[in-house]
């Protein structure tokens, strides 16, 4: 079957999708977006976390056909998504200007799609600065989950962070650096840096 949906702000069409296929498979194998990781395919690890109409979900547990007509944001689009969100509030001028700019970026090429060439989002930068990335396999899912939490809850307690990230497993870091990274992103966000 054919599935039409929006990924990172751009309309996409996937053909010859098997009816039992997951959204994760379509993203990785049909649309060339391998940022969302496939580790368990059973919802346990969170490394496939994406936003479906804004809501964080495990892409491995969404049937591709369920994404029809909906909006998906993957880690590849996170920087652009965060940038537009900041524009939507106040950080970069008027709304029409930001829409113009979004249009230009899309016309330019594949940056909002693959994430290449775009500046990192605050939460991505914080993960690097805090040393929260080791093998990196868990990182995309954690970034999407952490970014969504900071959108909802700009001043999270440690308990809030742990709860928001409780569906994301990391086998390398022991989580402390991840906690540091999210605290750092929250602090920078509230300082408007």
């Amino acid at each position, binding site marked *: 079957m054919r599935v039409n949906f929006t990924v990172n702000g751009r309309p996409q069409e996937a053909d010859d999708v098997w009816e039992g296929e997951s959204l994760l498979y379509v993203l990785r194998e049909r649309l060339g977006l391998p940022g969302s990781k496939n580790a368990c395919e*059973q919802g*346990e690890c969170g490394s496939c976390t994406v936003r479906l109409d804004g809501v964080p979900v*495990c892409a*491995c*547990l969404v*049937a591709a056909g*369920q994404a029809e007509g909906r909006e998906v944001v993957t880690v590849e689009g996170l920087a652009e998504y965060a940038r537009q969100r900041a524009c939507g509030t106040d950080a970069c001028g008027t709304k029409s200007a930001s829409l113009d700019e979004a249009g230009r970026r899309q016309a330019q090429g594949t940056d909002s799609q693959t994430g290449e060439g775009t500046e990192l989002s605050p939460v991505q930068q914080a993960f690097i600065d805090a040393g929260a990335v080791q093998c990196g396999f868990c990182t995309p899912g954690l970034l999407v989950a952490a970014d969504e939490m900071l959108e909802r809850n700009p001043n999270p307690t440690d308990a809030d962070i742990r709860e928001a990230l409780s569906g994301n497993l990391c086998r390398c870091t022991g989580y402390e650096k991840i906690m540091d990274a999210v605290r750092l992103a929250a602090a920078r966000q509230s300082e408007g840096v």
Partner: protein
Amino acid sequence: MDFLRPASWEEALAAKAEHPTAVPIAGGTDVMVEINFDHRRPEYLLDLNRVGDLYEWEVGEESVRLGASVPYTRIMEDLRAELPGLALASHTVASPQIRNRGGVGGNLGTASPAGDAHPALLAAGAEVEVESAARGSRLIPIDDFYTGVKRNALQPDELIRAVHIKKADGPQQYSKVGTRNAMVIAVCAFGLALHPGTRTVRTGIGSAAPTPVRARAAEEFLNAALEEGGFWDNGKIITPSVAKQFAELCSAACNPIDDVRGTASYRRHAVGVMARRTLTWTWESYRGTRNTSEGAA
């Protein structure tokens, strides 16, 4: 495989009537695991995501009519006051990502003895509203819904429309044993609801019998003991011997197995502990509200 995408409840019922073997998929948090691991290859997947009615709820005088697909996240955040037991149980399900997708309709569809909604529904009192194109809708009392291990009372042409859950008229609790706070399938679980209106206590036990069950003998014992001692009126602390016997009767209501998550005897023991604790917590809370309302009067 065919992927059916009804846009309305009527279309969904028609599709299920035409293809009774079709597997409904709501949040997909049970169905997709089975498909990903090749445990299930249904001929038809019946996607319910476009059926908006299933994502809505109505708070009535007596009960909440909870759409089958309302995700756990919404129950936790928006129905805490009306359905405290189910909200607590919802919060123990898996992770935020899973709770954003999964809901009570899927939990009832799977009817796993470990499903976290079940003890809360049994304790609160609920009816499952199911419907077929041919015979219209019917209400199945929650006590009759679970018919065996992962079996329920649905007919092949029926879908779950909603669950009617009694609004809390007193404190409710939910307790679950597992190795972590998140992402844990219950080793065993226990739900308890005080119903001061009818002066009854109801229970629900998870993961300690082939189906979710109530501890009926324990309920009857406790109801009688509370009545005899005038506890609902005098608001006294429940006598330790009463709490102890209640806990023992709850353990006795279990019919557990040994499996990778725990042994049968551990489950029996843990259910007793949870029964005593949840009784203590809810009763303390009942006494608290009683005292403040008397103080205010």
